[in-house]
């Protein structure tokens, strides 16, 4: 008897949707979570990644090359946007919100001018599926899950185990102090924004083969990305992953068993209640941690 006999038939798709939720929010962790820019153009960087993969496929016939170059394209556009506009707006959050909204509209319109509103597709780089424990597992969807896990591990390692990550955390916590301790805050901010955009671009490229592309493609992911980052706690990477699992899992289970509309309503309710309860829970966790530390210090 296989594992599939005990689990719902959509179990693998639930895992895929959880991965998608985490994947689309990874980039926003850098731009919004860390840099505090309410980046309403986040969806458009997903769009840029998807269309970059599409364009490179058109030019070279090589889908994998598109997957590799999509984050580079999105990252470079991100640097131009940060250096050209957003670096003047770090202390003006409402202005940066307006700027990113305007840029999102411009990017969307430019994509529509270049590619029209006609649906486009990116080939599945691997194609096919295989049987695992009684489940039918499409190779590319499995790749999305694996890539998401790898990216989560990589981001955690970079932020917590490297000098760049240490300087990044210092920069976002106290930019004035960071600058006077030898950290090039301007460079660090540009790098973080570029990484956020590159991750969004990579998400777009990875998701392109399982979606139909059009200029509105990025908008599909914008709200859910923000929900994940806000519920997880702005700037908390572990919180982001937990929120991605909670929201993506809830949406998938309800969507597959009841309806998409009902699932989206429940996800919004979970996000609202979660945001309301999070300060209380985090205070309890912090208090417990402080108590433990003071006991350790007194020993």
């Amino acid at each position, binding site marked *: 008897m296989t594992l599939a006999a005990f689990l719902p038939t959509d179990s693998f798709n639930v895992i895929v949707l959880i991965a998608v939720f985490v994947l689309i929010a990874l980039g926003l962790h850098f731009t919004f979570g860390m840099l505090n820019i309410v980046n309403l153009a986040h969806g458009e960087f997903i769009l840029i990644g998807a269309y970059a993969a599409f364009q490179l496929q058109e030019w070279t016939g090589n889908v994998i090359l598109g997957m590799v170059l999509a984050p580079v394209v999105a990252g470079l556009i991100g640097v131009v946007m940060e250096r050209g506009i957003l670096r003047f707006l770090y202390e003006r959050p409402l202005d940066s919100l307006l700027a990113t909204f305007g840029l999102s509209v411009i990017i969307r319109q430019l994509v529509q001018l270049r590619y029209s509103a006609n649906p486009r597709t990116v080939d599945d780089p691997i194609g096919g599926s295989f049987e695992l424990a009684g489940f039918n597992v499409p190779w590319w969807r499995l790749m999305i899950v694996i890539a998401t896990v790898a990216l989560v591990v990589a981001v955690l390692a970079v932020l917590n185990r490297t000098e760049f990550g240490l300087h990044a955390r210092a920069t976002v916590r106290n930019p004035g*102090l960071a600058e*006077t301790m030898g950290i090039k805050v301007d460079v660090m901010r540009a790098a973080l924004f570029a990484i956020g955009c590159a991750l969004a671009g990579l998400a777009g490229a990875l998701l392109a083969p399982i979606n139909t592309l059009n200029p509105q493609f990025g908008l599909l992911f914008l709200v859910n990305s923000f929900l994940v980052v806000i519920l997880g706690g702005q700037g908390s990477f572990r919180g982001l992953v937990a929120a991605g699992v909670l929201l993506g899992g809830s949406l998938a289970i309800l969507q597959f068993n009841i309806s998409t509309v009902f699932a989206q309503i429940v996800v919004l309710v979970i996000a609202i209640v979660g945001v309301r309860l999070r300060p209380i829970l985090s205070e309890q966790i912090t208090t417990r941690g402080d108590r433990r530390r003071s006991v350790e210090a007194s020993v």
Partner: protein
Amino acid sequence: MNSVLRVEGLNAGYGSTTVLRDITIEVPAGEVVCLMGLNGAGKTTLLKALMGVLPKKGAVTFAGDDITGWKGHRIYDSGMAWVPQEDSVFSGLTVGEHLAIALGGEGLDRGISAAAKLFPVLGDRLDQPAQTLSGGERKMLGIAQAMVIEPKLILMDEPTEGVAPVVVQELIPAIRLLTEGSAVMLVEQNIDTALALGTHAYVLERGSIVESGPVTELHDNGTLAARLAL
């Protein structure tokens, strides 16, 4: 006189508001120069301007370089360290990580040993988030961060302000130890601390230097008491 810092005609402020006007000061190598004045005189603003946090006009020469237009990180790399009065730690980062940032990835073990020797309590709390330290311990961390990079000049903003007397007794010898290798510009309102550590003093009032001279002389002729409204 061999000066590590020379400031001439400095003007600085916040946005369109000018706080400091025509500041001219000098810090000789290896000396502790006190910057004194009442709250709101512009002492912290001057340190921020020198450290590149605030834009400034005038001429600032540090260790032979004109650093007037330099950014903070470049000023730090050239050998000027800042121990701020408030907002002095990165929330969420441990004590050890603070020292790692200060050292820029070089000689971390040596730096941690030196910091722990100066302030043993920090050595016991390397893995503790810095925002959970007491006020006095934060001051110690700030001083340790400056000390481990062996700077040419340390800008120190009221290191004994709001700290328990028992901690002050620990801080003063540490600051004195620092002065053996670095010049110090010490912002201070406490005359006893200035007398204990300083050689020369400038008195700031409403953004301008109104008095300067040897600390003992300014104390003995009553200038400090009068200017600090004691």
